[in-house]
């Protein structure tokens, strides 16, 4: 027979246990709050105000009308004007800007002659979502900007749009390098934190500590196998990306290797740090989840980074996954070399230094 008092007893017990495990309880409250804030405020599937550079070959009133219109539009965020084609190229390659507008020399003259001069929009289409809206809105924006100057004249300019790095606008190209970051974050941090916590949970840590084994011997010995696992994951993903989805690898293998090695180290040390805090494998897993979620949402993996509000971008900058994904996309899709991704490499190095130091400080040499 069903007994209400037994059911109530079990419910009561369950609540007590839930409240005793503060980390789990924190997760239960924290995850929905975090999701709500991130999805509600930070994530923007229709990104606006994307960083744009204008190469001014001409400085006439028509050119200025266009830049002004871009500035007032919510699609573009003009971060600068330049006359150097080299500068625009590197800005696009490093991912500093998503769009480059090129106004050709003699634009004003040709326009007034009715020669229908070309105006060029280079869009970084490696993320088709981010590039899509701006590129779609650009021709109309130019027409409307020039209309007051030219009256009823039929299309006075030709807008040419170059979807760079991913002309077909295939999302796979953008997703696959991002997956590298997400999968490494997930497995490396989680595997190491769980493997290390397991020793404490099962009591085998005491056996280890009772032998003359040194702490760094434990650390190196436990972590190295996961470096192999990580390398195999990278190899599988790269091969799959090439064979199944035709994702190119255009950039420097050396830069890639540097980024991947550093990123694996970051995540391993993160896992190590978690293991010094977590008291059980369950807690270790929860902590990885807490870093994993923002790593998916704020790193530019799922949603365009440039479309997020400033505070979310700042938060994202603190995540190693953000820098890694950014660097790998530049290397694989845009043919970037080491120098182009250095601004992503050094933050990774800094994050690694911070996490590794914290982990070493927290590591217990005794059972105290």
């Amino acid at each position, binding site marked *: 027979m069903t007994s209400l008092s037994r059911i109530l007893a079990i419910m009561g017990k369950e609540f007590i246990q839930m409240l005793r495990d503060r980390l789990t309880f924190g997760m239960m409250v924290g995850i929905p709050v975090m999701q709500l804030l991130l999805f509600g405020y930070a994530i923007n599937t229709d990104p606006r105000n994307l960083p744009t550079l204008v190469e001014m070959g001409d400085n006439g009133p028509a050119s200025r009308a266009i830049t002004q219109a871009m500035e007032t539009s919510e699609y573009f965020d003009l971060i600068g004007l330049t006359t150097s084609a080299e500068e625009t190229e590197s800005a696009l390659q490093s991912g500093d800007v998503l769009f480059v507008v090129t106004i050709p020399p003699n634009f004003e003259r040709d326009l007034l002659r009715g020669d229908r001069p070309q105006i060029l929009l280079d869009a970084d289409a490696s993320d088709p979502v981010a590039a899509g809206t701006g590129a779609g809105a650009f021709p109309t924006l130019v027409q409307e900007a020039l209309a007051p100057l030219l009256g009823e004249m039929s299309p006075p300019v030709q807008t040419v749009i170059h979807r760079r790095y991913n002309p077909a606008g295939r999302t796979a190209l953008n997703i696959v390098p991002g997956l590298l970051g997400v999968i490494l974050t997930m497995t490396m941090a989680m595997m190491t934190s769980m493997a290390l916590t397991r020793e404490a949970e099962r009591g085998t840590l005491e056996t280890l500590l*009772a032998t003359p084994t040194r702490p760094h011997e434990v650390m190196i010995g436990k972590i190295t196998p996961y470096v192999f696992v990580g390398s195999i994951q990278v190899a599988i993903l790269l091969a799959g990306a090439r064979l199944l989805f035709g994702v190119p690898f255009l950039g420097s293998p050396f830069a890639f290797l540097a980024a991947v090695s550093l990123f694996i180290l970051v995540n391993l040390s993160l896992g190590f740090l978690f293991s010094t805090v977590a008291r059980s494998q369950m807690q270790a897993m929860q902590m990885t989840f807490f870093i994993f979620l923002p790593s998916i949402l704020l790193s530019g993996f799922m949603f365009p980074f440039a479309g997020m509000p400033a505070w979310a971008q700042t938060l994202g900058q603190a995540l190693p996954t953000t820098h890694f994904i950014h660097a790998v996309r530049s290397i694989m899709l845009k043919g970037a070399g080491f120098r182009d991704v250095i601004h992503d490499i050094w933050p990774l190095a800094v994050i690694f230094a911070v996490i590794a130091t914290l982990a070493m400080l927290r590591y217990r040499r005794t059972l105290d």
Partner: protein
Amino acid sequence: MSEALAIDVQGLTKRFGDKTVVDDFSMQVPRGKIYGFLGPNGSGKTTTIRMMCGLLKPDAGGGTALGHDIIRESREIKSRVGYMTQKFSLYGDLTVRENLTFMARLHALKNTTSVVEAALEEYALAPRANQLADTLSGGWKQRLALAAASMHDPGLLLLDEPTAGVDPKARRDFWDRIRVLARKGVTVLVSTHYMDEAVQCDNIAFIAYGRKLIDAPSADIPERVGLITWRIEGKGLQPIYDALHGADGVDQIARFGSALHVSGRDAERLERAIAPYRGQDGLIVEKAKTGLEEAFIWLMTGSEDNFQ
């Protein structure tokens, strides 16, 4: 001077938060002895053992194990001491042989294979060498743990309740092993709750609430405690038990099979308490030797009064 002593610690104190788990603990264990370490659960035995082998840092006090400083030379101690944890703490998902090989390699032993094979033979683990440690019964797990803790020929073995929850036959086998090691000159400090094990120790230290209450050759302990015990045997003991329990002069009363053991410190007052039962029909009242168990229960009762 410490060369003659396997363990020589003074004033060991350990606090967790504001709870003092071990308080001013001193102990000298001569080499080659089997030293029993007794005390109620939570009395600080495990903490003391962990401090002796460098797993915990004492908040105060110090000393040596095998002549090495327990604070500064914990690495030397770890390579010369064998420590068996209370809870089985080898790898359940490794086989018996893999566990032993792993431990041998952590101790950086030369010719690992032959050391491991020798240990497998010596501890009769060879038939189970390829079995996962998790699938061993409790007794065999303990045997494996002892093999793992003694493979590097330690001069001192610290065994923390090695036979808890193990069946009597396996316990006896385990103690045979301990005596074999002791004959080879290994000093053994073993904590236990079993009286039949305690009597096999050369010396016994009794600890309660973090303080050492007695430290003496096991044969001397009942006398040291100073209890006089009378044995009342017969039928219908329950009313007598009820009457004597807490009576003046009776410090402790316990049932032993079909008899009562009535103990007290003051011979005259104890005599007055049991006098009514002398000469009763079907009751035998005779002087008995105070046993180890009674002595320890008495010590525990006394320490509760002092510390709670």
